[in-house]
């Protein structure tokens, strides 16, 4: 079972992520919490619409946020899925969702990121982290708090240090 980290704690994960269309056809969306691929999400969203507060979406790193924009404000959960930890597009996607689209729901990192990226991811607006079961939570929490202060503005601190310096 993967673990979910939020605000420095391990919490229960009630959401299930559906990888592809085939998985989707075998799933009953009318109950439970589901995270859908973006393509499937838009068709489900434009269809029946029941249980919609329990439908989230996951984005690949080449996601086009403009086509997501009509739905963004109602989404309870957006997952940014990292195909490989060196693919840094998710960092920009996270910040854009939170700062430009003013997304107020939960933003989650899934897929292949590494512990040592979590501090930066959090700064870019990631609220929760889907981490593998074999990661040490203590070690993860330490990495999350690698820095107590930062130069730049980001989602966690909209004022750059130069506006906060005495």
């Amino acid at each position: 079972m993967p673990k979910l980290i939020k605000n420095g704690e391990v919490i229960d994960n009630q959401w299930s992520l559906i990888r592809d269309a085939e998985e989707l056809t075998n799933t009953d969306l009318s109950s439970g919490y589901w995270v859908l691929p973006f393509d499937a999400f838009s068709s489900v969203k434009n269809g029946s619409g029941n249980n919609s507060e329990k439908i989230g979406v996951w984005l690949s790193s080449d996601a086009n946020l403009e086509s997501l924009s009509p739905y963004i404000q109602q989404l309870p959960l957006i997952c940014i899925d990292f195909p490989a930890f060196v693919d840094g597009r998710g960092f920009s996607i996270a910040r854009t969702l939170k700062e430009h689209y003013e997304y107020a729901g939960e933003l989650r990192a899934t897929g292949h990121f590494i512990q040592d990226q979590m501090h930066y991811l959090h700064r870019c607006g990631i609220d929760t982290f889907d981490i593998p079961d074999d990661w040490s939570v203590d070690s993860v929490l330490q990495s999350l708090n690698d820095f107590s202060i930062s130069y730049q503005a980001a989602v966690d601190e909209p004022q750059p240090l130069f506006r906060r310096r005495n």
Partner: protein
Amino acid sequence: MYVYDEHDHTIIRERVKQFRNQTNRYLAGEIKEEEFLPLRLQNGLYVQRLAPMLRIAVPYGMLNARQLRKIAHITRHYDKGYCHITTRQNIQLNWPKLEEVPDILAELAEVEMHAVQTSGNCIRNVTTDQFAGVATDELIDPRPYCEIIRQWSTFHPEFAFLPRKFKIAVSGTAEDRAAIHFHDIGLQIVKQDENTGFKVFVGGGLGRTPVIGSVIRDFLPEKDLLTYLEAILRIYNLHGRRDNKYKARIKILVKAKTPAVFAEMVEKEWQTIRDSQSLLTDREIHRAKSFFTEPEYEQLDELAANEKLQKLSAENKAFGHWLRQNVSKHRLNGYRAVTLSLKPTGIAPGDITDSQLELIADLSEQYSFGEVRTTHEQNIVLADVPCHLLFDLWQKIVPAGFAEANIGTLNDMICCPGGDFCSLANAKSIPVAEAIQRQFSDNDYLYDLGNINLNISGCMNACGHHHIGDIGVLGVDKKGQEFYQIQLGGNAGNQAALGKVLGPAFGREEMPAIIQKILDVYLENRTAEEEFSQTYQRIGIESFKERVYAKAH
């Protein structure tokens, strides 16, 4: 120069702690090799041919005496007693132990230094003109802006996993000495009416696919600097290629989109963030500038000083040569900037020992307000030397080996560490540099040649900037054998140009004779006023080709 406050100290100390933790986890097998790779690279740590290599950041080339002494101490205690000045004004250690790197970083932090983002696919050390603040052709000192960019780019959470590395250079002078046409972003400080701003070049670079940068904005007001950089970086981070590392630099994206379309994309992104809190304030610009004020200069008489120097030059020919070659004008009367040559024959260009570093620290305190600058030509500059102390200084540096009067000459070559050290290299570069220096040991001949940039890279990654030398040498590998290709006509400055390949490559032992032939063609064809680049432009590459490849043997 910039002085850390409590915040800067905290950030760098926390970085040391973070990297110590990462190193321990790696050594304990808790971080996979491929996952540790970008973490160590973003702390300047490579695993090289013979040992790890640690690249220490020297922000825009500025160092003080205390830092020089610390580097000397580090080379002595953690390495083999020497280090290397790189073509990005940084310092490299060739033999540190991986497990001791956190200790080295802790020592550096004591003197406000670090190895942050000196490698990896992130924003690298920002560079500028080594004569910043003292150049006679300077519009505005670029260093405060460099420092603002340094802080913004340090641990930028969004841009630590870019498609590829990212280099920014700033120039504040009429004559570009920072190679702004050959950086991912080049910023030229300009004035419009009374307002300061930047002309923005993007997508320049060397490496496998050398490109001259394109202007995407003629005037960016200074306060918009960080938001605009952020817009460029975000467009690059989202749209730069990630499928092929050789096509991942921003230059490929700019070319694919065209500079005009790329500029529109940046503009659109920028409009959404230009009024954010990252907009610079007068207070911040003022704060940054307050660290780069004038030292306590004396009022000196330029005419008298110059007269004295001319007299000393007449009496002492060696001093005269040094004064002409290695000493540059200063914007203040009675002062000069002195370049200490790290290119004596037989020493790898840019290499310097622990005791030499300590001597330079002493000299900087005696003659130049305790500060020095590293240069991208791999030398060290004392920027504020009073004329009346030049002769004294010269007498001290002659025995130390820094007074080789070769700055700007063929023998002041730029040279990467090459196959002797670097695991990327296809060929050695240091022995080629040495063989050429030995061939052209007659200084009168070198002076007669005038200013010539000879740039040597051991592979197509082009750390030796071979594309932008008057003469560029590129090491290539042919079936396991080292060969050297020659390029002519490159220019790093205002007349930015990429060198053209002369023809098939040569073996290492042929190189001095081939360079001789190229110089012969120049000497036979030049007019009285022409430097190499001008003769080359006038007569073209064919004349050189004919001579070099003539079927005489």
